[in-house]
């Protein structure tokens, strides 16, 4: 376990005992990842912000039931995944159109970088968001949790309530499509 992961688990333990300041620290440490996840899953910055907010409120309310047999990170991903899937289901129910990814986001590149590289990154980010919205929800989620959040297939199965084989198939399909998409659109390295 890395130093950072250890610190996060300690914060979770304190928060579980009702320490709101520790929960705020935990939230600060995980906010980026949760927002990035809800953003990639929805392609909508407003929905991403709302879902991240709901995720942390639900986490605070349910900390008592967090038993610590998984890491607090994957527990948070699970909450975010559930919130996002519910949101996407509702969207589908109320809209006959595919959601259009919004490009109205603020890039958050903290390190000074070559402007052409920044532009390239911005294009890649938008392409990646576009690409992810083309994936069926379960493939998108498997891709998000495996590639971005580096969860094991077993953990993804637990998070999404899917069988191991299904998770692997979903992820493999997403990777196959990504490879095809990257070749067709000539992504540069």
């Amino acid at each position, binding site marked *: 376990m890395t130093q950072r992961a250890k610190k996060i688990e300690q914060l979770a333990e304190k928060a579980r005992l009702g320490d*709101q300041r520790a*929960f*705020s620290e935990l*939230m*600060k440490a995980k*906010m*980026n*990842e949760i*927002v*990035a*996840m809800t*953003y*990639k899953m929805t392609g909508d*910055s407003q929905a*991403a*912000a709302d879902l*991240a*907010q709901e995720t*942390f*409120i639900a986490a*605070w*309310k349910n900390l008592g039931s967090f038993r610590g047999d998984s890491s607090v990170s994957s527990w948070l991903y699970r909450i975010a995944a559930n919130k996002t899937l519910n949101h996407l289901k509702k969207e589908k129910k109320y809209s006959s159109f595919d959601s259009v990814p919004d490009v109205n*986001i*603020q*890039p*958050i*590149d*903290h390190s000074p970088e070559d402007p052409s590289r920044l532009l390239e*990154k911005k294009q*890649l*980010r938008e392409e*990646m*968001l576009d690409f992810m919205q083309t994936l069926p929800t379960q493939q998108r989620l498997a891709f998000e949790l*495996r*590639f*971005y959040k*580096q969860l094991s*297939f077993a953990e993804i199965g637990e998070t999404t309530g899917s069988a191991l084989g299904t998770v*692997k198939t979903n*992820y*493999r399909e997403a*990777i*196959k499509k*990504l*490879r095809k998409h*990257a*070749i067709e659109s000539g*992504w*540069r*390295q």
Partner: protein
Amino acid sequence: MRCERVQEELMLNIGVEALSPEVLEHVGQCAECRAVKDDLDRVLPNALSDQAFSLSDQVLREIQEKVEKSIAPQRIFSVQRALAIAASVVLVVGVSYVGFRSGGIDDPFNLPPDSSADTFVQTFDWLESDADSPSMDALFESVDSDPYRSSYDLLLEEITDEELEYLENNLSAGELL
């Protein structure tokens, strides 16, 4: 190892987990599988890190503030809450009085030894009429230092929403008053 199996391993693990020695050995000898690996090695780093998909610091701060506001213990000002608190106060004062009468706890009103208050009315009569009684300020000072008084304060000020909900759900003010 068969190519199909190797390519599956590549797709499932590149960028996340280390490839097995068997897969690496196969890739070294098979042009088709090597092409798949090279493709994925080129494509996946371009998928960018989470950092590139987050929102601005300003937005992240706003989300955090909203959550903090939402989870902070809230004071609800409602008739029900006021009644519940009033009922709690009556309960506490009642218990304190019974305790006092039965000699179970120290005199919460710090009465002089010769005072024999039978009821609250008499106690308060004494407070109002007796010129030799301790001044009101001194009286409250001594009351404040009383441990029993402290728990009384605690109940008034620190009643949690859960406790309040319990009171509201389980006791009507009429029953207590």
